[in-house]
């Protein structure tokens, strides 16, 4: 380019370059060489002396899809968009499923063979993309795993995916003891695998900055895994250390569910006693109230009345915000 543009320059008979305004090519090339050397030097210094904390895994980065590459500088924003989508997806699916159950549709937990038409199939991919675009998206791991582990119909009931998501987060940010705690919870609450839960609580406790009670949580899990008192301790701890409203709400709901389990057991004993005394199994509350056994229709911690089945079983109302109650963990022992 330069040589072509230069072609027009001629020395005149007087030996003077008529382009007296332009700096001579030699000076230009010389200064460009010096400047390029400086640029290279600065690059080397930056690369060797001042590494920037990585926000993306290098191995992940190289195998990522082309679409992700195009996002280059807008990756965090892309992650935000996917996070919003994930929350929207989860919320709207949950509303649809609740509405369907109210309308009387069968909302039994999905059996391995038949999948419900309304499901949460896209939840994991959405969370995966979110955390791939921004591997430090803390909230996406923690809330995402809660949603994933939730049993149907409140969630897809996929503790395995919840653990996978948290493991991915632990890989991106190895110092986060919260992820170990969360994995422990999934093992404890959803998979009833107490040795694994205790192992993860211990792994979390080993990390710098972990709270003291994580170690005792591990011990309690090993000793009394599956007992309601241990569960209450777990969720009580969760409530206290809740980082935000949603986590706090989730923990509070768990504790209320435990309360509901206690209340159902108490009510069942009452119903059984009345049945034994009168010889007829009550199927509604008014006879019990008339008998003086109850002061009014019993309600769960969220205010929804308990139900009595035809066989006299006390049950939580499907309309209750606490529905469905967790499957009571089997106490820790050789059976698990």
């Amino acid at each position, binding site marked *: *380019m330069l040589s072509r543009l230069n072609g027009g320059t001629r020395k005149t008979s007087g030996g003077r370059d008529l382009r007296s*305004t332009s700096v001579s090519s030699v000076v230009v090339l010389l200064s460009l060489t010096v*400047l*390029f050397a400086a640029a290279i030097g*600065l690059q080397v210094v930056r690369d060797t002396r*001042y590494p920037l904390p990585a926000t993306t895994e290098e191995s992940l980065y190289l195998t990522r899809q082309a679409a992700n590459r195009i996002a280059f500088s807008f990756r965090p*924003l892309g992650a935000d968009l996917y996070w919003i989508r994930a929350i929207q997806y989860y919320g709207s699916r949950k509303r649809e499923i609740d509405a369907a159950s109210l309308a009387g549709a069968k909302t039994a937990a999905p059996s391995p063979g038949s999948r419900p038409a309304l499901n949460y199939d896209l939840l994991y991919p959405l969370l995966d993309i979110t955390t791939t675009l921004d591997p430090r998206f803390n909230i996406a791991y923690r809330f995402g795993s809660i949603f994933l582990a939730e049993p149907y119909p409140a969630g897809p009931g996929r503790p395995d995916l919840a653990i996978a998501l948290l493991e991915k987060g632990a890989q991106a940010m190895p110092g986060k003891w919260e992820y170990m705690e969360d994995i422990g919870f999934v093992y404890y609450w959803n998979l009833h695998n107490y040795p694994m839960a205790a192992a993860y609580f211990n792994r979390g406790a080993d990390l710098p900055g972990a709270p003291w009670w994580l170690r005792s949580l591990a011990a309690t899990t090993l000793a009394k895994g599956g007992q309601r008192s241990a569960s209450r301790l777990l969720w009580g701890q969760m409530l206290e250390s809740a980082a935000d409203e949603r986590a706090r709400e989730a923990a509070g709901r768990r504790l209320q569910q435990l309360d509901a389990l206690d209340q159902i057991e108490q009510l069942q004993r009452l119903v059984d006693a009345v049945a034994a005394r009168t010889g007829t199994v009550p199927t509604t509350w008014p006879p019990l109230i008339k008998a003086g056994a109850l002061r009014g229709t019993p309600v769960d911690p969220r205010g929804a009345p308990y139900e009595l089945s035809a066989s006299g079983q006390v049950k939580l109302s499907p309309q209750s915000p606490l529905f469905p109650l967790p499957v009571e963990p089997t106490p820790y022992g050789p059976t698990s």
Partner: protein
Amino acid sequence: MTSLGWIAVNGFRESVRDKVLYNLVAFAILLMGASLVLGQLTAGQDLKIIKDLGLSAMSIFGLFIAVFIGIGLVFKEVERRSIYNLLSKPIRRHEVVVGKYAGLVLTLTVNIVIMTVALYAVLAYVAWGENEFARQARETPALDPALLKAIALLLVQLMVVTAIALFFSTFSTPILSAALTFGVYVAGYFSADLRNIDQVVDSRLTQTLARGLYYTLPNLAPFDVASQAVHGLPITAGYMAVTIAYAIVYIAILLVAGSAVFSRREFK
């Protein structure tokens, strides 16, 4: 004021009169709209998302200003032949190139400063309405001064992009200049891959070539520290200094080369 200063100020006046700063209105609407909507959509991540959104919008608006005005700076003068008259004044041609560059940098700087003020205002507003739990869940303060580091490096990056656009416009048409500038921009983002190519490719020639390109192409990725800033990761003063020094040197390369080309150009 020197001739260079006069040319720069005139360039700034041109972009103001051509209503370039109107993009600020779009930026403000975007941020305010986001702050209103996000609180209802997301779980305690409003501030992070507004930061991400603000920095990305600054980057993309700035990029468009840098490229689309940068490529026209010299071309417009030549196309409309106002350059004939300008060059009849007692100035040298490189003063035109550097002055025009300085004018656009002035425009960009004013633009970014106003955007920064708007971003912090929106962050302050959202933080004011934030609840206790969200406050504890945040990784960084709402009005994190580390954002300023990211914005400073973004501005410096845009200065490099402007210099690239200006360099191309000294000898080529606007469309070609825009294509070349965007090409270098994208390549500049991926030049880290070029450095690491020896881990993927065995060919010695390819390795050398890739390494050569890594060191000669403008490396734009190091200027993008938005994600580090948003997550509260450290950005050291040394890193800032070396990165800014690199930008200054690279801008000098482009301006020297651009001036050299422009000084040899004929206006038929």
